[in-house]
Every structure is written in structure tokens, then in C-alpha cells.
């Protein structure tokens, strides 16, 4: 048989009698907007090729056409549930390029918004993680409790999920009256609620039997693969950008980094939950130490121009270290903007973890990576 001429990008594969190739996604609810090509021998995965890009929107290209302020609403689109944290490194970078020093009160409010957003993201992820392990209570509870924090963020920013709250020079608007009291009350109740998740989910023998000792990422591999965030800290490495390279006021606040050593799916799913307790602690501390009045925003000139040069800033988002590299050529628009997102960095661990696992363990391993397909695609 002569090989037919194929359009670019297409290839013909021989079908094996024993090994079956399975496409999971990109529209499968179990994978998010992403395709995972797995090859299975019976029940065991022998090869795995993640294929992101189904929702690639060219955020980095779009950023080259818009000025530093207009970039804000579209740059938070990759992770709308964590929109404050994905804007954070961008805003810090633009402030360095423009030479702005923001006020103390704005720094504290930013930290509070970022921590609330981290919890909102983790709750959403936890809901999905629960439902894909067949635990529908764990879908309902976080989805409901997440509303508490969304209400708070709505009071702060005016929007439920896409806040566009951080701007170069501070934050868009000051807190509403009476916010501190409401925030403290809701965060305390929220913490009480998430404590109960241990009974229903984390101490549940069914969850433990499904996730413990599956998808083990060793300490050495976690470093070698350059993973970040909860994946890294579940493998016993104490690295949190908030501690290692504190930005804004994180060095003045009281919190700890959560680290577990086993590196399996169970540890990876537990770290974000433990992080939420630390977030509550940070919010309470920040509310106490925050200056009670003062300016929260420096007004910018229209179309501000950055100085010539580049800047690389990073923050700890709900999924891990999120970096933003901005190259400026003294124009109102960035010359090049690169988002180094944690989901994309953690994706490389997926083939390593899945090979040798049972196909049935795929959802628990995949979602334990705290992976957000839209963010990885940008």
C-alpha cells in the first residue's frame, strides 16, 4: 500500500493488537479542556501524552497590543477563580517598571484579596476533585461554602469572580465600610466549616484507599521536573514564594508553610486544604495589622510608559509559583509578556505519575496535580 499524502500535522499510526490508545478529552468532563492520550495494556497505563492547547487564546500575544492598564481584565481570564493571584505578578512587575511604590494600606488589602481568592480557587478545585472521585457531598459542600468568600470579594471588588481589582499603583477601590467586621466573622465561620471536611473527606477510608500510594512523586523527581506549589510541597520540599521571596507585606504576617512527605495523591490533595487554614490565619493577622485609613491607590498618567528593560516577578498562587516576565521598550504596551503559570509547570509530572498506574486511578492522580487546563493553555 502506498502511503497517502497527508496534510501537515497528521500521521498514520499502526494499530497494535495488545496496546489500546485512548483519547481522554478535550471535551471530556473528567479532563477539563484538555486531551490526555493514554495507551493502556489491559488496565494499566503504559504511555501518556498530555496534549494541552484546546483553549489556547493567545493571552501573551494579546497583551502586546494593549497598554499596561487595559491588560488587566484579559490577563485574569486564564484562572477566573484565582483572578487576584494571576494578576499579582503582572501588577508587581508593572509597578517596578513604572517606579511606583504603593501605600501600606493597599498592600494589606491586596494580601487579603489574594488570600480570599486562593481559598475560592481551592474550594472550586476541591469540589471538582470530590465529584471525580465519586464523592458528591464533597462537591456540594465546597461549592456552598465558597459562596461565603465570594460574597466578601463581591463586597470588596464589585464582581463575583473576575475582579480586576489589582491595578498598577494599588487597588481599584477602598474597602466598603464595616468590611473588617464582616470579613472576620465570615472567615472564622469558613474555617469552622472546612475543619469538618476532615470527617467527611480526608479521614474517609474510601478516599484514603483510592489515593494513598498512588501516583507517587519522589522528592528528587519533584525537583528535577521543576514542579511547584502543592505538588512540590506534597513531596517534602519546603518552598513557598510567600516565605522565600516575600512580596508586599507577607514578611510581616504570621503563617506557616504546609509540607507533607509522602508525595502521593493523598498528600497532594491534602496540601491545598491545609493551605486554606493558613490563608485564614493570614487574613485575620492582616485585618489586625492593616492601617485603618489612608490612600489605596496612586493615580497613573494615561498610557504610562515603562522604563527600558525587563522584569521577572513571581507570587504564590493557589496552584504554585506564578511568574510574569515583562519586557518593556518604553512604549505604553509591553514589548513581550510571558506568564509562567504553575499548571503548565506541573503538567510535566503527569506522564511520570500515570505510567504504571491503573486507568481507574487516572482521575485521582490527574486532579491531585491541582491542574487548571485553561491556565496552562493561556
Amino acid at each position, binding site marked *: 500500500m502506498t502511503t497517502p499524502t497527508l496534510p501537515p500535522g497528521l500521521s498514520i499510526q499502526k494499530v497494535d493488537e495488545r496496546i489500546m490508545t485512548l483519547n481522554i478529552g478535550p471535551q471530556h468532563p473528567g479532563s477539563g479542556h484538555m486531551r490526555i492520550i493514554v495507551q493502556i495494556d489491559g488496565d494499566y497505563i503504559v504511555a501518556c501524552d498530555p496534549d494541552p492547547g484546546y483553549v489556547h487564546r493567545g493571552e501573551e500575544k494579546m497583551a502586546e497590543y494593549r497598554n499596561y492598564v487595559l491588560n488587566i481584565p484579559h490577563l485574569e481570564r486564564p484562572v477566573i477563580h484565582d483572578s487576584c493571584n494571576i494578576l499579582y505578578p503582572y501588577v508587581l512587575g508593572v509597578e517596578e517598571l513604572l517606579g511606583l511604590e504603593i501605600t501600606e494600606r493597599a498592600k494589606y488589602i491586596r494580601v487579603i484579596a489574594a488570600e480570599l481568592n486562593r481559598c475560592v480557587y481551592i474550594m472550586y478545585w476541591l469540589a471538582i476533585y470530590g465529584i471525580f472521585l465519586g464523592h458528591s457531598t464533597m462537591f456540594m459542600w465546597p461549592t456552598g461554602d465558597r459562596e461565603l468568600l465570594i460574597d466578601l470579594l463581591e463586597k470588596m471588588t464589585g464582581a463575583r469572580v473576575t475582579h480586576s481589582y489589582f491595578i498598577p499603583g494599588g487597588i481599584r477601590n477602598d474597602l466598603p465600610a464595616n468590611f473588617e467586621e464582616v470579613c472576620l466573622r465570615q472567615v472564622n465561620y469558613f474555617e469552622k466549616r472546612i475543619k469538618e471536611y476532615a470527617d467527611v473527606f480526608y479521614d474517609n477510608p474510601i478516599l484514603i484507599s483510592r489515593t494513598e500510594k498512588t501516583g507517587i512523586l519522589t522528592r528528587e523527581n519533584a525537583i528535577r521536573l521543576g514542579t511547584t506549589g502543592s505538588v512540590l510541597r506534597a513531596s517534602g520540599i519546603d518552598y513557598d514564594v510567600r516565605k522565600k521571596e516575600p512580596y508586599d507585606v507577607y514578611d510581616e504576617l504570621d503563617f506557616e508553610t504546609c509540607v507533607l512527605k509522602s508525595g502521593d495523591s493523598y498528600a497532594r490533595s491534602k496540601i491545598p486544604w491545609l493551605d486554606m487554614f493558613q490563608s485564614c490565619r493570614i487574613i485575620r493577622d492582616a485585618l489586625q495589622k492593616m492601617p485603618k485609613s489612608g490612600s489605596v491607590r496612586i493615580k*497613573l*498618567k494615561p498610557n504610562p510608559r515603562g522604563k527600558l528593560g525587563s522584569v521577572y516577578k513571581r507570587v504564590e498562587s493557589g496552584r504554585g509559583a506564578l511568574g510574569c516576565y515583562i519586557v518593556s521598550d518604553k512604549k505604553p504596551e509591553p514589548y513581550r509578556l510571558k506568564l509562567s503559570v504553575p499548571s503548565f509547570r506541573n503538567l510535566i509530572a503527569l506522564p511520570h505519575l500515570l505510567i504504571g498506574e491503573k486507568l481507574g486511578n487516572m482521575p485521582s492522580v490527574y486532579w491531585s496535580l491541582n491542574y487548571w487546563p485553561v491556565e496552562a493553555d493561556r
Partner: protein
Amino acid sequence: MGSDSEKEVIEKKPEDSKPTEDKVTAKPTPDDKPTTAKPTPAEKTPPAKKPSQEEPELPAFEKGIADKIIDKFADKTTVSFVKPDRVGIKVNRDSIHDVAEFARDVLNYDHVDSVAGVDYPADNEIEVVYHLSSYTDPTLGRQILELATRTQREDDPNPGKDATRLPSLRDIFYSVEFHEREVFEMLGVYFEGHPDNRRLLLPEDWADLPPLRKDFRNKGR
């Protein structure tokens, strides 16, 4: 053309433009107007002075890192900047592999945070910037080492088959695997020695220019 006219507008009326500011930076609540209007001149002057004060004495630890690299690869590298927690080194295309190996084995950087490609059509070059960081060495917790290298740019690119290529760092830093695949599809830089030079984010049948090159225009722009 567009940028020139904008420049004039800014220079002509720096004060008159206050009402338009509100439009640019979203709508503020009425009560923060009096507070934010005042600090603008006071807040903006100190940062302008800051760089000039800091420049004479570079941060010692960061300078030490830069000196180690310059001592070893004197004629092949130049320091582009030394800032607090950040060191930027420009490396010749041929020695990027050696410098990366030195950064891993001697300086203890163990993974790559980000790999960014930047297109410079005016210089006829494409720059690839590696941001290295370290989990294992606690003294490097805050540090990012930026290695930048440039390669030739072709006006009529044929990704993978033209002269736009660089040695892959995948055998040194395993974590660059997906990042280099992304740079390959987005800018057409072929990484020699990379085991898996396939597209990652773009569709398989993409037949246009690599989209992050400056001559690729977004539709409607």
C-alpha cells in the same frame, strides 16, 4: 505613527487629562478622589531617585553570582543587570549549554521557572530567556538567574528546518521539556537535542507564521 500622536497628547496636557485618567484606570469610587489626588507628586518622586542611589553599590550576593559566571566564561558572557534577587547574564549561542551546566553543578540552580522567547526583528534575532531557580539551596531561595541567548532569525521561517536553532538544555534541566516545545511552536526556534520537538498548544495543522513573532498580526488589529 500611532505612538507619536499619543506622545504629543501626553506632553501637551499632563494636567488637563485628569478626567480621562478615570476612564483608563476603571471607575474609582467617589470617596477616594481627594485622597489619591494629593499623594501623586509626593509618591512619585522617591522611586525616581531610588535607582540612582542603589546603582553605585550593587547587591553583594547577586554580584558574587554574576562574577563567578564571568570569571569562568569571560569572553562568552556579559552581565546585563544585577538587581536585588535577580541576575541577568547574556550568553553566546554556542556556550549556553556550558553555562547552564555550570549553573547547575557549581551554582546549585536545579530547575527552570520559565522559558520565554522574545522576537527582535530589528536586530534580526530571536532571544530565548531561561529563568533558573533553586529548591535545594536555601541561600538561593530568593534568587532568579536569567540566562539570555540569541539566535539568528529568518524572515521567511520554516520552523525546524532553517537556521533558527539553539542547543536544548533538556539534558541539564529536565524541567525545560514543555517550555522548549512551547518556544518552538510560538517562535520557531528549533532546539537541537530535544527528544520531542512537537507542537504543544497550537493545533496540529497550524500553517501560519509562529504566532509570537512580531510580524504575525492578530486579526482585526
